Every structure is written in C-alpha cells, then in structure tokens.
C-alpha cells in the first residue's frame, strides 16, 4: 500500500537548511494500523504531509497503491489526495459555516460525485461514526469529540487507500480520544489502512505497529503483540458520565 524508500525532506528556512526527514524506509501493507511516535520536531508531521501528497519530497521515492507519487503534477497530487487519502487533523479542520453533512460531502464534490449519491454516502459515513442525527449541525454546535468524528466521516467517505491522522486525539479529553480510537479500530477491522501520529503511548498501543522517529530518522519499528481494545476500555473503565476529567471541549475548528 505504502512503500517509502530512502525518503528525505529538507526545508529551506532562509539561508538555513533543516533536515526534517532523512533515509526513511517504510512499508505499510493494506489493512495495517500503524502509529507514528517520537519527540516533538522529529519529523512525524513532515512524514504525514509527504504521505498525504500535501508536500513534495526532496529525495527518495514514495509509492502509494502501486503508483510513484514523487514527480506528480499539482493536479495529479490533488486527485491522489481526493481519492486515495483521507485526512484527520489535530485541529479538526472542518469548514465552520457548513453543516456536518456538507462538510462530509466536500471530498465527493471534488470527486465529481452526483448530489444524490453524495448525500447517500455522506449519511452512511456519518452513521458509521454515530452522528447521523447531527448531520445538519454546524461545528460550533458540536463537541470536540463529535467534530473529530465528523472529520473521520469526511476522511473515509471517498473510500481512500489510507487514512492519515496527525494527532487526532491531541485536542480531545481521554474519553473522546478513546471513542475516536474505537472508531479507527472498527474501520481497521473493516479493512481500512490507517497511519496515526500520536504523542501518547497509550494511544499508540491501540494499533498493531508503532514506528519511532528521532531527528528525522526512523529509529524503531515495534509490533504491538496485544493491542488495546478501545470499545472494551470504554465499556469497562469509563462508563458514560462517570469518567473523570471529561471536559466537553467546545472548541471549534476553523
């Protein structure tokens, strides 16, 4: 699914060159659930941007779904982002003045899908994240956890080859984060390939594989023998309403 060979990324910041990634070799098979961890500034977001075709690599090669991505034109990259990749951001990045439904429809609009089909699939995607009833709400009327679930619905609506999530639980409280992980695990069980950046080992342990970055290099690749099951944890440890430290974060995306 994802094949990265000798990947390097150098930023030109004024006269200075910043090596954000160097010699990264990474293969991710279809259906894998991978966590990317590492200290701040280690290049995790840079990797996600490259994998997501938001940025162009400086050296090496990147194949997505059997296609060489480096050297693609802007338009081709946009098409790859549209059809092969689903983004979930730490800052949510929903369009604030649009309803959940309309937000989920956006990737399909750019894919040229007809309105009726679009609506059907948007409702279906919102149903999968348990927010069908909230489809006509705007982000300002939703909690942080709900907003992130809408953005997951948006990420999966075009059936992407891979879902890329950069610290999706970073702005959420523990319970909402756990709910997000539960959704990811369900999607993964349904066959979705997911790459997720996190700072919390607890979150990372929900995946099957953790890759560690330090100073732009991939330093460790660990298989998680017995991943935590988010749904189970939610049911056992944190029955709704009792969990401590739940702050209904009303943050808007924007």
């Amino acid at each position, binding site marked *: 699914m994802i094949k990265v060979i000798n990947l390097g990324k150098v930023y030109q910041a004024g006269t200075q060159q910043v090596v954000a990634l160097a010699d990264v070799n990474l293969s991710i098979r279809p259906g894998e659930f991978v966590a990317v961890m590492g200290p701040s500034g280690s290049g995790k977001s840079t990797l996600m941007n490259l994998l997501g075709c938001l940025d162009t690599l400086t050296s090496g090669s990147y194949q997505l779904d059997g296609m060489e991505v480096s050297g693609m034109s802007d338009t081709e990259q*946009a098409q790859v*982002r549209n059809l092969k990749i689903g*983004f979930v*951001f730490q800052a949510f990045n929903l369009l604030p003045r649009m309803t959940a439904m309309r937000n989920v429809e956006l*990737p399909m609009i*750019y894919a040229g899908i007809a309105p009726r089909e679009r609506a059907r699939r948007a409702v279906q995607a919102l149903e999968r994240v348990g927010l069908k009833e909230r489809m006509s709400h705007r982000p300002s009327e939703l909690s942080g956890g709900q907003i992130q679930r809408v953005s997951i619905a948006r990420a999966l609506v075009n059936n992407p080859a891979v879902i890329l999530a950069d610290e999706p639980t970073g702005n959420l409280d523990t319970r909402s984060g756990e709910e997000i992980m539960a959704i990811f695990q369900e999607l993964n069980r349904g066959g979705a390939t997911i790459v997720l950046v996190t700072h919390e080992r607890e979150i990372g342990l929900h995946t099957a594989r953790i890759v560690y970055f330090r100073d732009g290099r991939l330093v460790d690749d660990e298989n998680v023998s017995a991943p935590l099951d988010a749904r189970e944890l939610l049911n056992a440890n944190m029955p709704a309403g009792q969990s401590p430290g739940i702050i209904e974060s009303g943050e808007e995306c924007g």
Partner: protein
Amino acid sequence: MNLLESVRVALEGIMTSKLRSFLTTLGIVIGIAAVIAVVAIGQGGRAVLMSEMEKMVTNIFAIFVDWRSDKQVTGREFDLSDVAAIKDKVPEVTHLSPVNQIMSDIRGPKDQKLAQVIGVSSDYSYIRKFNMKEGHFFTEEDDAGERRVAVLDEELAVQVFGRASALANKITIANTPFLVVGVVAKGESALGFSENPRLYIPISTWQVMFNSQVQELEGSTSAKENVNEAMGQAVKLLERRHQTPGKYTSVSMEQEMQAANKITGIMTLVIGAIAGISLFVGGIGVMNIMLVSVTERTREIGIRMALGATRRDILVQFLIESIMLCLLGGIIGMALGAGGAYLIAKLAKWPPLVSWWTALLAFAFSGAIGVIFGLLPANKAARLNPIEALRRE
C-alpha cells in the same frame, strides 16, 4: 468539479457574510446605477430634444454672407431681385424672404422697449409657419406699398401694450408710427431658448427706414429632404448673379439638428465615461476586498486543497464568487439606475429610456469586471501552499 457545483460553492462563500458581500459590491452597484441612469437620462433628453426639433420647422434654410471669407463685404451681396430669381430658377424653393434685422426703439401705449425690428416679405410667415394670435401677417400688397404695418410677437405685444389689445393700434418704431396688424403666438420652445422681443415689418418699409441692403435670405422647401439641394442651388445662383464665388454660406435646420444631436451624444459619452471610471473604481474595490477575503480564508483554502480541490477548482471558486458578486451588484445597480432614471424622467417630463441593450451591456460589463478584478485574488488563492494554508489561524 462541474460548473454548477462551483457556482454553489461560490454562493455559499457569498452568503456566509451577506453584509460584507453587499458592501464589497457597493462600488459596482453605484457604478452600474450611474451608467444606467446617465445613459437613460441622456437618451431620454435626446429623444425630447429631437421630438421638439421635429415639431419645429425642419424644411427651412438660411443663406448669408460668409464672414470668414477673405472677400470684401460690400453690403450689396443680396438684393431683392435675387429673391425672385431664386424662386424662379430653383423649383424646390417654395418660399423665400429677405431678412433684415436691426435693434430699435419701440414705443407703445404702456411702455417702450428695445426690440429686434425684422424686415421680411410676406413669405416669411409661411416659412416660419407662424401661428397668429391676433390679426394676420402683413400681405404682399403691404410690402409693395411700403406700408407702415407691423406684426409683433406675443411677448413684445404684452410689453408695450400691457393688457390692452395691440391689434389695430399704433406703435412707433424709431419715432415712426406703425399700425399693428397682427400678433404672432408664442411658439412652444421646450429648449428654453428665449429670443429677444421682436416685430416684423415689410422689407420695403424696412429699407426705406434704415438702409437699402438685404442682410440675408431665408427660405423653405416642399420637404426637408430637398433642403440641402435647394440651398446649394440657390447659393450657386447667387454666386453667378453677383460674380462672387465663395462669398455665401448657408445653413439648414436639418444641419443644426444634426449638430445638436452630436452635442447631446458627446455629453452622454462624457458623463458615461465618468460613470465608467466609477465602475472601474468599484472593480478595484471588489478586488481589494476579495484579496482580504482570500487572506482570511486561507485556512479554508488549505482544507479544500487537502480534501482534493485542484488549484483550478480554487481559482474557479474565487473567480465565480467575484463574478457573481459583480453581477449581483450589477443587477441591484440596474434596478437603482432604472428607478433613478424613471424618477428624473418623470420630474423632467421626459420619456424614461432604459433600453434592453444598455441593460444587457451593463450586465455583461459587470460580469467582465468580476472576471478582470477577480483574477488576481483567485490566482492568489490558487497558488497557496496547502500545508502553509492549513497551518494558518
């Protein structure tokens, strides 16, 4: 993404901040309103002018000495025999009269006035198609007999007679007594040209009283179509008779109308150009706000790009937004301008003239402004780097 979706996305952009959208396009509203109003009023005014001129006698012409010619002016350029000769040789000329003018002192029972004393033949009332308020115009016999008879215009009659009837009463012209035989009704002059108070006396009498010259000729033809032909022939005949080529010049009402038409056309053009400049300024206003809007919506653009919008999609979105804003402004402006033109036309009693082509042109023009002034902001939006755009607050 197809055009319909682009339009919908652009509409969403416009509708999310209605007040700002309206203020953005206000310049276009004012510009288009100004253009529509100016053109409508200009055309209305012109139509009024033309219809007034149509009402006036259009088949008349005048021949006079060309002051610009380098030939010596002798005062003998015309004489009374020319009139008969022209009428004889130029069949198109139906009426022809010598016209002499002099300012003189007029005394009536009520008051005295300086007025234009005009010596003409009896043909003159046919040329000018005078409408008599009282009495009649003097006759050929009056002229032949050098009689001291006068025809006053209404204004002068009121000035020197007051409420008393002027008809069959006496006035003096330069201390010579005259009998008033008629009063000419005031002509409808919507153009508002006020002429000096005037009175008409037989040319023969005029020549006895003042001097024996003939100053100019005025004539009419059977139809306005042959005025220029008749005029030209008359001038040629005069030149032959007096052996003075190049000394005469002539003008027809038709030519004067064309000149007036041209002037109102130029005025409309000038005011239209000013309105056009205001439209241009309006366009710059739209561009300015659109540029700000692109900066403010950088994050949105980044999100759209991350979700698969191509640069072209973004460009089209902002371009359509700009075009729709301008078209909206154009429509509102058109309504306002037409309303204003209608109001002014009503006050000025002109026909309101908002022609379909002005409306169409204004619509197309505001659309074009949308394209021209939307290109820069749209291009700026499309060139954004998605990662940087996403990072923006």
